[in-house]
């Protein structure tokens, strides 16, 4: 246990960091409760958005101490932000939880040793360095290389974790080790009539583990009429840093990205990972207290789009192949929302429109497609128990559709769905795919 004085210091930091107006804007109507996965799973008010906001406010008001259970409660939140579109009062929950975590992070010295260790390794040692990520991609599995394994073995407290990681290992894709720039260069021209110029945000996890998906993203964009630039100076989006209270680092990463895409002179920044896209569209908020960045950050935020959104709304229709075999051969797919694409980028409709428009593909909605699968950044590593409960439920709903494919829009969700299929699919032939790969595969061969 930390000393009382440390706790008081944390309270002071919470007072400074938490936006008190947002705390009072929550009028406690409870409308967000049914949308929250952790509340639905546990039925406990403290595990709900309304409850968490009340706890934050109570620590600031001096009604309760910011004690260890308080810190734990702040990490139980998935950060899926399903509570935000559910809130008629427009309470910015995402900002509140980030502010709370930021304050906690600043104060925790003996903070669950292993989590801190993992985070440090991954956030500072790995993600900001494209080179190292690439190395990692060259076939060495994430958890061994990053030292996660040792960090984990040192703690006996969480028996679940090693199994969680062992399971994760099984589902990690064969990495090529060659990022999208190595494969395609920094410029790919539009095919046919040009519609516009876009910049591709490659993402660090995507480029190391799913370089193929990145390549296909560029090819789809080019096919739809966009000149694609892939600025080399871009780096990690900073989402994981921001969501875990490492705001200062997140800001630095943001600035480098803004500069890179400003210089590339593009009309839009395209992301193919909901988790990255969501922080990109909030760079204006991330940098709100830096006036000299205000204009550029606002430009960046308002010009970032998800791949599905731009393909559906602005691109030329893609040339899809007619399926062979007619009706009977129809492929059944179901779409698992990326929480951040849906709740933050408000882009839940376009992937469905694209899938619905594919010849020979039948889109079947699963129950609660919009609720979090438990992946949530690194949540499935730091909170394996809740993550597994949510995954099991998710797979029950997915099994209910009897789909051949679960289509996703974010690498974290994709890995989690693969894990889900591995563990719980009633038909093991079920496959999880990224929407880009699915669309690309169905394009007519040009020739």
């Amino acid at each position, binding site marked *: 246990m930390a000393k009382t004085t440390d706790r008081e210091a944390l309270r002071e930091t919470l007072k400074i960091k938490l936006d008190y107006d947002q705390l009072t804007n929550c009028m406690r109507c*409870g409308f967000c409760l*049914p949308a929250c996965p952790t509340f639905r799973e546990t039925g406990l008010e403290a595990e709900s958005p309304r409850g968490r906001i*009340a*706890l934050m406010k109570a620590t600031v008001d001096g009604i*309760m101490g910011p004690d260890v259970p*308080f810190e734990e409660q702040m990490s139980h939140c998935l950060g899926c932000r399903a509570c935000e579109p559910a809130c*008629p009062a427009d309470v910015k929950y995402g900002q509140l939880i980030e502010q709370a975590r930021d304050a906690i992070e600043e104060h925790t010295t003996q903070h669950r040793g292993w989590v801190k260790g993992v985070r440090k390794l991954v956030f500072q040692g790995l993600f900001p360095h494209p080179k190292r990520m690439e190395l990692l991609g060259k076939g060495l599995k994430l958890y061994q290389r990053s030292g996660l394994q040792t960090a984990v073995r040192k703690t006996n407290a969480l028996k679940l974790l090693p199994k969680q990681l062992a399971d994760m290992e099984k589902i990690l894709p064969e990495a090529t080790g060659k990022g999208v720039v190595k494969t395609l260069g920094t410029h790919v021209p539009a095919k046919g009539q040009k519609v516009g110029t876009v910049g591709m945000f490659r993402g660090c996890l995507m480029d190391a583990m799913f370089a193929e998906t990145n390549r296909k993203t560029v090819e789809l964009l080019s096919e739809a009429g966009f000149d694609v630039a892939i600025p080399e100076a871009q780096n990690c989006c900073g989402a994981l840093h921001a969501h875990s209270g490492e705001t200062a680092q997140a800001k630095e990463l943001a600035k480098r990205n803004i500069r890179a895409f400003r210089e590339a002179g593009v009309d839009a920044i395209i992301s193919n990972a909901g988790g990255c896209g969501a922080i990109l569209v909030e760079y204006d908020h991330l940098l709100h207290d830096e006036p000299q960045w205000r204009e550029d950050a606002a430009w960046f935020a308002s010009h970032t789009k998800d791949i599905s959104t731009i393909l559906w709304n602005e691109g030329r229709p893609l040339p899809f192949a007619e399926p062979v075999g007619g009706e009977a051969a129809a492929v059944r797919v179901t779409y698992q929302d990326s929480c951040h694409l849906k709740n933050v980028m408000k882009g839940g409709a376009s992937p469905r429109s694209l899938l619905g428009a594919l010849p020979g593909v039948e889109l079947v909605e699963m129950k609660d497609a919009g609720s979090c699968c438990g992946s949530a950044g690194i949540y499935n590593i730091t909170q394996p128990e809740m993550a597994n409960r949510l995954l099991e439920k998710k797979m029950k709903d997915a099994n209910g559709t009897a789909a051949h494919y679960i289509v996703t829009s974010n690498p974290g969700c994709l890995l989690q769905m693969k894990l889900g299929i591995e563990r719980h699919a009633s038909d093991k032939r079920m496959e999880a795919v990224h929407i880009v790969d699915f669309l690309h595969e169905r394009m007519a061969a040009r020739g």
Partner: protein
Amino acid sequence: MLDNAIARQLRDIVGASWFKDDDQTRVAHSYDGTPMLQALPDGVIYPGSTEEVAAVMRVLHEHRIPVVSRGSGTNLCGGTVPIQGGIVMVMHRMNAIVEVDLQNLTATVQPGILTKAFTEHIESLGLFYPPDPSSMAISTIGGNIAECSGGLRGLKYGTTKDYVLGLEFVLASGEIVRTGGKLVKDVAGYDLTKLLVGSEGTLAIVTEATLKLVPPPKHKKTMLAMFSDVYDAARTVSKIIENRIIPATLELLDNPTIKVVNDYAKLGLPTDAAAMLLIEQDGELETVERDIELISGICREENATEVSIARNHEEALKLLTARRSAFTALARLRPTTILEDATVPRSKIADMVLAINRIAEKHRVQICTFGHAGDGNLHPTATTDARDTDEVHRVEEAFAEIFEAAIAFGGTITGEHGVGLVKSPYLEWKLGEPGVAVMQSIKAAFDPHNLLNPGKIFAKSARRRVVLERG
């Protein structure tokens, strides 16, 4: 804090994880949907069955510990704030649909089931349970019963009281009582079932309810009418009823409410309209079409600037859902939102709207008005800031005057949200001293030691009445 030995007894009854007294849980049960109220309980218990409720009550009774029953804590009268500490009893675990009787058209449920989950299940069976408070996505049937909640369909279908046929409840002493049943008629003694409806957790803990179901309407049509004067809109409400048309839904929203709802739900409403009526009629196709036509005519006669009909079911649902968000959406305007529940005879709705606006102006506060106008039930809502004590004081003065005006029009201080803590000082205005005294003796008969939701409904002292200036 609760004595360790008592905590142990409680854990023995419900299981170790279903009694909690950590700070986090206590803080998370210190509030409800009512602004500016907070009080910590000593512990929170989550019983799983009627027997557990009874056993818990025996322990609490023996030690004279207060207990506040709680559904989802969405009430707006301070009903679940444990102002005298004690135990909050959360009913969520008791959420089963025990039986749907398709022969008698009744459903028997545990109180912790969410209203919307229940109505959806009933609708999937081709039946209909009409009470639909705006909070239905999260409110519980137990909470609905204890507050006698209304909703958007109250006008034609009545409120919760019209659907409760039988109850099982646990007294403060731990004894279990059953009343009513799957019966259309029952005059065996006083009607305890109806007495429990609207009793706000002060008489007993409801552990099971038998509810009346009805066949669903075959057709529905939803329409909007816009007005450039809120008085015209309010008068239209009375006119519709005067013309002997009883729509299923007849809701009024004033200009600020239209704006915030539009902001949230992106409906593309004309945000310069002074008021809007949202009207739904259901029933046989012919009746629905005829009524909607007649209502449209009345709206136009009363100067509606625009009348439109929802194109399809989705659009209608979107409008109703948006209306349900109105109260919370008003929280966009200022940090604190205080809503009231004054209700008047339907013929007086336009006069009441005028009175509210006049009173708001007099006290220099912003009051937005929306509500179940067809029921005569308005929700004048003050948007303010709890940190500004002077303004909050003016809001209180304004509301006192609004209550007085409602009573003067033959109305009441609350139509559906209950008295709880916040309206207890005004109860005597409505009932008079002997009325309150009768209620107090009923309370004492059920709960002689005042353990069930103490401090609610009955105030220590009544508020002095304001003198209304007429003219």
